[in-house]
């Protein structure tokens, strides 16, 4: 319940506030969003598996976001920023797909 409520509050806040992102943060925000989405979908899957834990969700969310950001930062410093960004996106994408497929299995029982 809290998750859905939080999502709604965040989207509404983003629409109404329309903040300017600092330029430093701009290359990392999309990665952060994808990582957070992965964490959210993982939480949804564990919720369906009846093994959801608030603490684990919070930790995994933060670690996902931070790891992805640090990876991209590292890539930028090594001069392979876009490649590493692509790599992170691919990995997170695969995880998102597998999470979605297990959620689907729980919902449609097949």
């Amino acid at each position, binding site marked *: 319940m809290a*998750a859905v409520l939080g999502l709604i509050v965040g989207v509404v806040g*983003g629409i109404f506030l329309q903040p300017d992102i600092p330029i430093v943060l701009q290359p990392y925000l999309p990665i952060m969003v994808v990582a957070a989405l992965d964490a959210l979908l993982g939480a949804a899957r564990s919720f369906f598996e009846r093994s959801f834990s608030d603490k684990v969700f919070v930790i995994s969310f933060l670690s996902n976001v931070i790891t992805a950001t640090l990876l991209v930062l590292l890539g930028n410093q090594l001069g392979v920023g876009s490649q590493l960004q692509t790599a992170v996106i691919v990995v997170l994408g695969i995880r998102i797909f597998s999470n979605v497929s297990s959620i689907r299995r729980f919902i449609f029982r097949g």
Partner: protein
Amino acid sequence: MTEHSAPHEEESPHGNAEQHQNSQRFDDAEYRGEARSRRDRRRRHHSSDNTDTGSFPMVRKRPSRSASVNAKRARIVTSVLVGLLCALLGFGYVVQVRNTSSSYESLSEDELVRVLDETSTQVDKLEQRRNELNRQLTSIQSAADKQKEAEKIAQQNAQTSGILSGRLPAEGKGVTISVSQRDKHVDAATMFTLIEELRNAGAEVISFNSARVVTSTYIKDTKNGLIVDGNQFSSPYTIKAIGNPSDLQNAIQIAGGVGSRLKVTFNASVNVVQTDSVKIDEVRQPQQYQYARTVE
């Protein structure tokens, strides 16, 4: 398999029952095997971090302690935290969605280089085009200048030739001569001589009564007057001439000239008046040439 099944028994009863339920529900051999191995691995590392793609840490809920205020508060705090994180996610998502199409700031280095290349090529092209247009403009301007010059010359020509051919009215210093015959008919030859004398003295425009005198003007005798260019005139005759007034007057009144001849031979009165402004309104339509052609 047997090795795995042994520690299976040691699982907490809560988790075990749940897992059994799941297994029964799905009845999926592959799934069960996967779940079991996962569980095994997790126990081995004593942590819930699983970096494998396609898996999410499965964490068993802590065995619920005895109902206490502490646990309740912790649950509220974590749910608030979860809500906050989700809010952050939604916020970031919306911000990013609004931002993607905003500016070059989010482009990568390669894209920026490409954009720069494209822009500089476009700048070159535009510069080229500008030079071309400038050249065109210069040529058109010079052409216009030439045309203007030609127009001016043509206008001047038209003016001079218009006065010369009698197409335009003229005005200027000159003399007005009136010749009135008394008893003797003034003949055409004498009047023609008078006009010729005026011409010799530098008269630029001449009119005879209401006829403009041009190169093709003729004077013919009749019983009661003269015909000039087909117009019948009778005495007194008024001849207006534009030119140097004193020269013109001298040309007529010189001793033994046409003036004295008119007086002596024809007993006519000749009156020459110098004026600062002689206005000759009489015009002649230009002749339509039937045979003559300009040489090309």
